[in-house]
């Protein structure tokens, strides 16, 4: 284990990381965010998802440094009386769960499809890629919106609310797997012709083993770059869906829904309902994007154009 | 009498992050009207960079550090880019190595030919077209009118290279610099292209600088030869004399390594080791680690190019 740590420390990866201040700063910030999200239930002043904690009389209180603010609501309250800070922490948590979950799902489907298509080639490849192309030709956000809308209409708001988090994860996961599939496939097709694959074949290893144990690890760099971008996308998608009212329900608000509810109040002066979650979300996504950019440059500046 | 093209003590460096690297270290040669010079050497010896320096097209971060290049009496190495543009493609044309990569895939042949003419003279599209057809015929391309409307990928490699030669002839240049013109082509086509170049130079009295690593081609086409090693010219003289009686040990090794130059049954000459990279050039004569005639002075003092026997100049302490 120690040897691996030392190897990592000596690697080019770590070296260029240390040299790039932006990457380091972003990573640092990201870690903080993740920590906050993880510990949200313990460190936030209250649980905003529990209806018992909310008193509508507390609604629209400004942050504590302003006139009518109160210290138990450091960043003010939203239009329903929920503490902003708690809701932001919980919202961040929700976003991360959905974001990571969705990307996992996307990645899983995408890798399976891409590996198969790339390695087996021929007809399988043609069919799978046609499918991917077709889904790719529809903007993934649109697909997510439609799926969510149809689900809501078909099964009613009640069950939608209950199943919100897993449902959103699945929806966002299903809407964007072609990106992964394409990237993996391209990478696999490149690796397929290399000697080590032929050697494995000559030894007589079954196809699946070759795919999983030999080809896949070498294609992982492209996966990593795409994954960071996709996490950012997934989080933004969830925010967008929640903003439209097709995402997290009003009782369990995420950052997107907060921004939505804040919109009306921004004109009447309660700007914090929109601005704080907004800044929070932007910084979070920005950090992920910056890290993604850096990863892309480290691995190969030419490969990941879009 | 001044030469048509004269390169004097040319030094080209590349400005890298950790310092400057010398790619061309004091190269001098001359070309007269209608003369054909071969610039020979291994990959990395500096031949292409020399070719590019003549028309000041060295890729960044390269730059001309010292020396001068004069053409038709003018010191073109000091020209601004605007003045240099009047010479490029006009008085001195260049042919690159891979015809597929050289022609822009999204424009027709005609487009790329006409624009070259219109860049250098005031001429109508129709007039330019006529000249283009003329040149296409000159390089023996069948159905030239059809070619003008075609795209590069619709033609074969040999055809594309002929078209590139045709483009280089458009303004009736004084010199053509051909950088490995046949390396990317099939062997059968190579001979055709070289014959074509030779024929054109002879009929129009055009100067040719042929940059290549292919000694067989050079011995066939050129009158003068300059052999480069690690950024310097180490042998310079009439082609047939250098090829049949090389002076410098490196040239000797090069010639001897060609199958066919040694009687059958005898071993081919092999030069041990490899040419050093630009950042690793040994002190004294750059060739000394690989030279069997090496003496102490070879490791201390860099030899200069001077007259040896037979009208050949070489840079060697021993020979």
């Amino acid at each position, binding site marked *: 284990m120690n040897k691996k740590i030392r190897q990592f420390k000596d690697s080019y990866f770590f070296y260029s990381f240390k040299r790039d201040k932006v990457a380091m700063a972003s990573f640092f910030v990201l870690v903080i965010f993740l920590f906050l999200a993880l510990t949200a239930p313990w460190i936030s002043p209250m649980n905003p998802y529990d209806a018992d904690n909310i008193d509508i009389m507390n609604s629209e209180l400004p942050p504590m440094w302003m006139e009518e603010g109160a210290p138990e609501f450091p960043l003010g309250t939203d239009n329903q009386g929920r503490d902003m800070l708690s809701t932001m922490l919980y919202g961040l948590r929700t976003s991360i769960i959905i974001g990571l979950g969705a990307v996992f799902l996307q990645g899983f489907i995408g890798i399976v499809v891409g590996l198969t298509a790339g390695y087996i080639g021929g007809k399988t490849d043609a069919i799978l890629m046609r499918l991917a192309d077709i889904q790719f030709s529809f903007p993934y956000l649109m697909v997510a919106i439609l799926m969510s809308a149809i689900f809501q209409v078909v099964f009613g708001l009640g069950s939608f609310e209950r199943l919100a988090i897993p449902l959103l994860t699945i929806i966002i996961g299903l809407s964007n797997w072609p990106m992964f599939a394409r990237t993996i496939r391209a990478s696999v097709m490149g690796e397929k012709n290399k000697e080590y694959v032929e050697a494995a074949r000559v030894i007589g290893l079954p196809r699946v083993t070759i795919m999983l144990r030999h080809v896949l690890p070498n294609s992982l760099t492209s996966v990593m770059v795409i994954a960071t971008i996709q996490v950012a996308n997934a989080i933004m998608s969830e925010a967008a869906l929640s*903003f*439209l009212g097709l995402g997290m329900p009003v009782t369990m608000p995420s950052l997107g829904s907060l921004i939505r509810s804040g919109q009306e109040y921004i004109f009447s002066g309660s700007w914090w309902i929109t601005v704080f979650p907004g800044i929070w979300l*932007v910084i979070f996504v920005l950090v992920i994007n910056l890290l993604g950019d850096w990863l892309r440059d480290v691995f190969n500046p030419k490969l990941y154009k879009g | 009498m001044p030469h048509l093209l004269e390169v004097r003590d040319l030094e080209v460096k590349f400005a890298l992050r950790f310092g400057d690297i010398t790619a061309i270290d004091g190269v001098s040669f001359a070309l007269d009207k209608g003369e054909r010079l071969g610039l020979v050497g291994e990959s990395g010896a500096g031949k292409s960079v020399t070719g590019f320096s003549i028309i000041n097209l060295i890729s960044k971060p390269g730059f001309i550090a010292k020396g001068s290049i004069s053409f038709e009496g003018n010191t073109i190495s000091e020209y601004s880019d605007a003045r240099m543009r009047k010479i490029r493609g006009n008085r001195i044309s*260049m042919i690159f190595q*891979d015809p597929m990569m050289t022609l822009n*895939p*999204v*424009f027709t042949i005609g487009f790329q030919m006409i624009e070259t003419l219109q860049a250098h003279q005031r001429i109508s599209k129709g007039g330019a077209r006529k000249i283009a057809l003329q040149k296409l015929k000159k390089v023996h391309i069948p159905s030239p009118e059809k070619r003008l409307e075609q795209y590069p*990928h619709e033609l074969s490699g040999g055809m594309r290279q002929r078209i590139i030669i045709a483009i280089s002839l458009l303004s009736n240049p004084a010199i053509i610099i051909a950088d490995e013109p046949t390396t990317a082509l099939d062997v059968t086509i190579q001979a055709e292209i070289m014959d074509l170049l030779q024929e054109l130079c002879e009929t129009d009295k055009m100067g040719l600088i042929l940059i290549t690593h292919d000694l067989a081609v050079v011995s066939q086409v050129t009158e003068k030869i300059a052999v480069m090693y690690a950024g310097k010219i180490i042998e310079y003289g009439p082609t047939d004399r250098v090829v049949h009686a090389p002076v410098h040990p490196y040239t000797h090794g090069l010639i001897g390594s060609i199958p066919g130059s040694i009687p059958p049954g005898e071993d081919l000459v092999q030069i041990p080791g490899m040419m050093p990279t630009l950042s690793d050039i040994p002190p004294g004569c750059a060739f000394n680690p690989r030279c069997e005639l090496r003496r102490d002075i070879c490791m201390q003092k860099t030899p200069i190019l001077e007259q040896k026997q037979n009208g050949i100049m070489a840079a060697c302490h021993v020979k």
Partner: protein
Amino acid sequence: MFAFIVRRVLQAVIVMLAISLVGFSIKNQIGDPVRDLVGERVTPAERAQIADEIGLNDPFLVQYVRFVKQALKGDLGRSFLYNKPALEVILKHAPATIELLIGTALIIIVVSLPLGVQSALQPRSMLSRFTMSFSTLGVSMPVFLTAILLIYLFAVHLQILPSYGRGETVDVFGNGYWMSGFFTVDGLKHLILPCFSLSTLMLPLFIRLIRSEMMEVLETEYIKYAWAKGLSPTRVWMVHAFKNTLLPVVTVFGVQIGIMFAYTLLTELVFQWQGMGFMFLEAVQRADISLLIAYLVVVACVFVLVNTVVDIFYGFINPTVRVTETK
């Protein structure tokens, strides 16, 4: 070339059929065509009768075929919410969205091309660095947030631009069909903020794309050759490099129009813009299945059309694609 077009069109048709099948199945299972026709105040007996009349008890395939036939004739069902044919409702709302897209596209083209090209030609200049930094920020900001902040700044604070709606519109064809906001100053003023918000999402993408494509092109052999021919910098950059850069960018643009479409939903919500997205959200809220499915079909149709057209267009301008079409 012809075979290429035929292939693309065939693919488009297959996709449309697949989507229509999905849409129809949903509608069949969930939708209530009887309610759409006659409202809610009908007795069960009457419902059963009407259901039979309009063929709701026929086998699935028969109903599907009927659906497709009707769709091709322009009948996509009836909107319960608006009490009009679904297609009519959609088409009525379409111009608003289309104008939004046109305005955004214009902004994107006008801004991204010069900035992208400039940052490729002079990557180390202040302007380039500034542009690139802003682009990462732009991608990280959700469209709706940008929209809200812009409204706050320009409409509430500075009060120089309107905060919602389309403003004064002009009847372009004289039949009440296309209400355009492009022909009045007020209409244009109303277009500025929404189009601008929408463009902030795409601008960073395009600037970066143009920049990286162009930088790659500038390193190619044929550009070097163009210099060797003695062509002027303007010609090398603006003719040779530019055309080669534009090719991949154009395809991306086609795809991105689709993505912009998705984001118009968000923008329309923020600005109370009465376009298709706004209509869609209302349909969701009121569970108007027919309208939703009709929307799905229309949107799918548009995307497939746009993608096919872009592919064919790309085939025209990039000669190498036509020959090597062996995917």
